[in-house]
Each structure stands twice: as structure tokens, then as C-alpha cells.
């Protein structure tokens, strides 16, 4: 059974559909939840926590229904919201201890774990200072610490790198990676920055405007496409003409010539041979010939670059 599963999950607000019949299954690991701002990432996390009631559909976390077993889910899940959520007049130690106890830990255990998790997120002497005196980076660490205080089985991190400088982003991503790999806690981390999230995740869920674009292991997002990319010094148009005449689907894209290859690959080396022969025949300078890989950005690129039937 998947760790998290949604069925036709829908959330409508007056005038806006935040989630539109989203069905997805998520397995343990570090899972990136990626989409533009407003794509429905935060809404999804809040529904999974039982903080928001869905308009339609259902969702299960650890096999528990979000509508009816919210408290049991929240006992096993840690949540780091996107926004500021810390009281400025408490110390990090007092606050995280309090939150640990609110999650069901006895007082002594909560104090002990607070010391552990604050050290883990990299807060030392400053943990006895009022949170109001902290930098943004330190506040993000406290937010992560309070989510870890009760040793959850699943962590929901909503845009954990928000507002951080480049060095702070690096450190936060490293913390996320370590939390997922060394502690074995499943981490669902949302971000609108693909480049960031692909560095820590092993599974990616991409959503756009409340729809699921794709949910798959990270590697499959960057697998080979059915497009051969050819770069010649000059004469792109002539090359395309020659290839089309030879029965291939090809067109010019910027300084590249894109040639469709058979999806199954059964055509073997035929397109490669055709390009080689055409280039040699016309005496063009061939710079590069390679099979294109998907880039994560392709997911969100609406424009279809190739004629119908050739896109992957």
C-alpha cells in the first residue's frame, strides 16, 4: 500500500479550483512536490494533514483517511508550513519542547528530543535566545525542528528554502536530504524551484493548476526522448529538406535540427545513418548529433516543439 494516496481529490474555493481531481500514489522516500506558485501544493499538504476539508474525492496517509482520522495522521506526521509560524517571545528550546508535548510526548522526553533535533538542525547556544532575535535561516531551522520534535514517520515541508540566501538554501537542502536518507523519514518537500528540488529527491510529483502533470521516479523525468538533436555549422534548412525527402520527420529549431526517431527504437540506426549520409553528401560541418534527454522544465512547457506524433 502506498504511503500516501489520493483519489480524485478536489478542492474548490469560490472562483478558484485549487485541486482538480488529483489522483496520485506516493511511496516512501524523498518526494518532491513541484509546481508553480498557486499550483495547489500547499492545499494538497493541508488536506493530507486534515487541516482542510476537500470538496471532493478522498485521501489517505499511512492508510488513514484524512477526513476521519486526522488526529491519528497528525500524530505521525510533522509539518513545516511555508509561512512564518513562530512566536517571537519564546526561546527555540521552550517552543519546540512545547510543540513536542502538544504532539503527545511526555515532558521529559520532549525536552530530550528538543535538544536532539535542535542540534540536528544546527542550532546550539542560540536556542536559549528568543526566536524574535533570529535570522531567517535560523527561523527556518526552528520550523524544521518543531516538525521533527515528535519523531514523525512522514514530514511535510512546504517550500523550506523560501526566503533563504544561496548558502542557506544549500544548508536547508542538505538537512532535508539527511533527514530523508539518514533518519529514514519519508519527506514530502514542496518547491517551485525545479533545479533545487531535483538535487534532493528520488521521486517527483509535478502539479500544475491543481492537475497532476506527472508522478514518477526522478530518473524517468530526464530519460531519453524520441528526438535526435543535430547541430551543423550551416545549411540547417537544406539538411531538413533532405531528411524530409528521405521520409523522416524533421524541422529546424533555432540552430538545431530536430529529427524524430522511432519510439521503440526498432528503427535502430536509420536516422543516424540518414543524417550522416545527408551531411556528407552536402558537405556540411557536423558539430554534434545526440539523442535528446527530457529536462524537468519540459513538464511545464506548454508549447509543443515537434510536429504531432513525434513528441515523446
Amino acid at each position, binding site marked *: 500500500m502506498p504511503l500516501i494516496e489520493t483519489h480524485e481529490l478536489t478542492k474548490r474555493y469560490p472562483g478558484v479550483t485549487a485541486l482538480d481531481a488529483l489522483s496520485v500514489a506516493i511511496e516512501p522516500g524523498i518526494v518532491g512536490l513541484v509546481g508553480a506558485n498557486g499550483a495547489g501544493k500547499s492545499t494538497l499538504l493541508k488536506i493530507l494533514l486534515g487541516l482542510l476539508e476537500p470538496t471532493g474525492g478522498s485521501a489517505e496517509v499511512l492508510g488513514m483517511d484524512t477526513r476521519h482520522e486526522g488526529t491519528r495522521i497528525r500524530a505521525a506526521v510533522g509539518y513545516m508550513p511555508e509561512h512564518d509560524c513562530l512566536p517571537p517571545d519564546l526561546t527555540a528550546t521552550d517552543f519546540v519542547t512545547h*510543540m513536542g508535548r*502538544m504532539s503527545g510526548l511526555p515532558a521529559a522526553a520532549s525536552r530530550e528530543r528538543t535538544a536532539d533535533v535542535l542540534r540536528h538542525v544546527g542550532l546550539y547556544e542560540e536556542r536559549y535566545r528568543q526566536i524574535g532575535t533570529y535570522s531567517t535561516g535560523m527561523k527556518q531551522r526552528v520550523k524544521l525542528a518543531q516538525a521533527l520534535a515528535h519523531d514523525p514517520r512522514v514530514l511535510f515541508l512546504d517550500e523550506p528554502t523560501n526566503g533563504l540566501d544561496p548558502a542557506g538554501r544549500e544548508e536547508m537542502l542538505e538537512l532535508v536530504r539527511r533527514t530523508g536518507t*539518514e533518519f529514514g523519514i519519508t519527506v514530502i518537500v514542496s518547491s517551485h524551484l525545479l533545479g533545487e528540488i531535483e538535487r534532493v529527491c528520488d521521486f517527483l510529483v509535478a502539479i500544475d493548476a491543481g492537475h497532476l502533470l506527472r508522478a514518477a521516479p526522478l530518473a524517468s523525468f530526464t530519460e531519453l526522448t524520441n528526438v535526435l538533436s543535430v547541430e551543423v555549422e550551416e545549411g540547417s534548412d537544406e539538411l531538413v529538406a533532405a531528411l524530409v525527402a528521405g521520409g523522416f520527420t524533421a524541422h529546424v529549431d533555432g540552430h538545431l535540427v530536430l529529427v524524430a526517431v522511432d519510439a521503440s527504437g526498432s528503427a535502430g540506426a536509420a536516422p543516424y545513418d540518414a543524417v550522416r549520409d545527408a551531411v556528407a553528401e552536402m558537405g556540411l560541418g557536423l558539430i554534434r548529433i545526440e539523442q535528446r534527454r527530457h529536462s524537468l522544465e519540459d513538464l511545464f512547457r506548454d508549447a509543443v516543439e515537434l510536429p504531432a506524433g513525434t513528441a515523446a
Partner: protein
Amino acid sequence: MSGPTGRDEATTPGGGATTPGGGAAGPGGAIYDIGYRGYEGPRLRRPQAVRTLVAHTVRGAYGIGRGGRSKVVPFGLLVLLLIPAIVSLGLSGLVGPAGQRFDPIRYESYYSVTQTILFLFIAAQAPELVGPDQRNRVLPLYFSRPILRSDYAFAKLLALFVALLLFTLAPQALLFTGRVLQASDISTGLSANLPDVLPILASAIAISALFAALGLTISAFTPRRAYATAVIIGVFIASNAIGGILYAVLRGEARRWVALLSIDTILTGLTSFLFSTPTADIPSPIVKRADLPGLVYIVATLVVVLAMVGLLFRRYHTVEA
């Protein structure tokens, strides 16, 4: 309720490298694993979380665990509240217990003497208990804990009630202790003062419940402290003013029921009933003239409290998290 519940599965999701306790003692000393440690101990349930939040909030009401400035208002007001009791005890110490007969500071009159201070405490502290959680957006962190939204509302209300009960009882307890000790001997003192204990407790509970429900519900509707304080004071003054105006305008039977229009007259009527104060000694002319049965004031208090609690729970059911 708070028995060990543990985890369903036998293994830590954290897996291998980490063990609870985190260390192994060898002959040459202890080796500590400073890596991540899971938690295998008991996980307590909602009642424990509510207790935690109540304790945390009661401390917050007095500024304990916060900065020094947070303590100024509650403890300043507490000192003001205690002054009449201290003065009264000082006077009877000088004049002797006989002077108590003429002393305006008595158990039954303490509320009417100090109600403004009680009220300032509510206006100042009730917004502090719920406003910051909304202002700083800590509420989503509470709601993402294994509690219900209603648990949060209930804990906050109970906390303000307890904080206010302590505040209301403190001068009475001082007065009681002083009176007993000032008596010719302890047993005389106890027999003279013990009959008042039940009315003291009952009136303190009623006053605290009414003020807590009113103050917390108003405060829950805004993250802004200043607005909440202004509305609380406004409600108190406006209800008194409306009561006063109607009392002046109305005639006949309707005039009696004006006593149920303001918070002040409801509580004066209730305390007078609980202490069996003779009608002539009731400090409020409106309540004196109304001469309503005590049960009416009890019902009025309950109605206000329940209405406020209903509103409070509705607010936290719908507030965005």
C-alpha cells in the same frame, strides 16, 4: 488515558544505525551515537495535549516564561487587586476585629470594589492568550498536532478561566487568612469565616467564567491586540451605559429586567444572591430595585457563557489554518 501507545510497527522507520538511548557503555567509557535517534516511548493522547496547552497558556496569562515586560501588567494589576485586602487587614489590626463591622471591604463586596481591576485584567490579558497565535500564524502548527480545533479553543478558554480564578481568589484568600489569624484564636476565626468559603468560591467561579468567555471570544476574532482590548472595554462600558439609560427611561415591570442587560449588574446580582446580601446592602441601585430571584442571575450568567462558548468554537472551526 495516557498509557503507552507506541508505534504500530516493530521497526523504527529510521532504520538501522540509530538506537534509542543512543549510546553503548564499554569498559573504557561510553560511546555516544550523536546521530539521529528515533523515539520509541509512549505517545500520549489529546487530554494530555490539552493539559499542556492549558498550563502553557495560564503561564502566558501571567507572563511567566516570557520576557519581563509581559509580567508588568498582570502582576501590577494583581498588586492593585490586593491593596484593599491589605488595607482592610491593616486597619482591623490597628482597631481590632470589632472594626470589621464598619469595614467596606468584605468578602461579598470585594467584587464590586475591585471589578474594574478584574475587567482591566481581562481586557489586557485575554487578547494576549489568543491574538499572537493568529498574528504570528502559530495556529497552523497547533492544528497540525494530534488535537482537534475544538481542543485548542477549549484549552484556551479553560486557561483564561483558571488564570482569572486565581486572580479573583487571591485577595479573598488573603483576606480569609488574615481574618482567621486576627481572630482571638484560630477556631473562633475559622468558625466566623468558614461559612463564607462556599459563596467566595461560587462567586469567583461565576465571575471568572463570565469574564473569560466574554474576553476570550471577543479576542479570538482578531489577531490585533488593540482591537480586542478596545472591543472588550467597549462591550463592558456600552452594556453598563445601555442598562443605566434604560433604567432611567423605563418605568414599571420592564425596569426590573434592566438588571440583566449589563455584565456588571448580572454579576452584582449573582454575588449578592450567593452571599445572601440583604437587599439594602446591594451596591447597585439597579439590582436593588430589580429585586429579581437569584436563579434569574444564574440563568443569565449561564446563557451569556454558553452563547460566548458557542461563538468561540464556531470561530475556531472556521478560522483559516
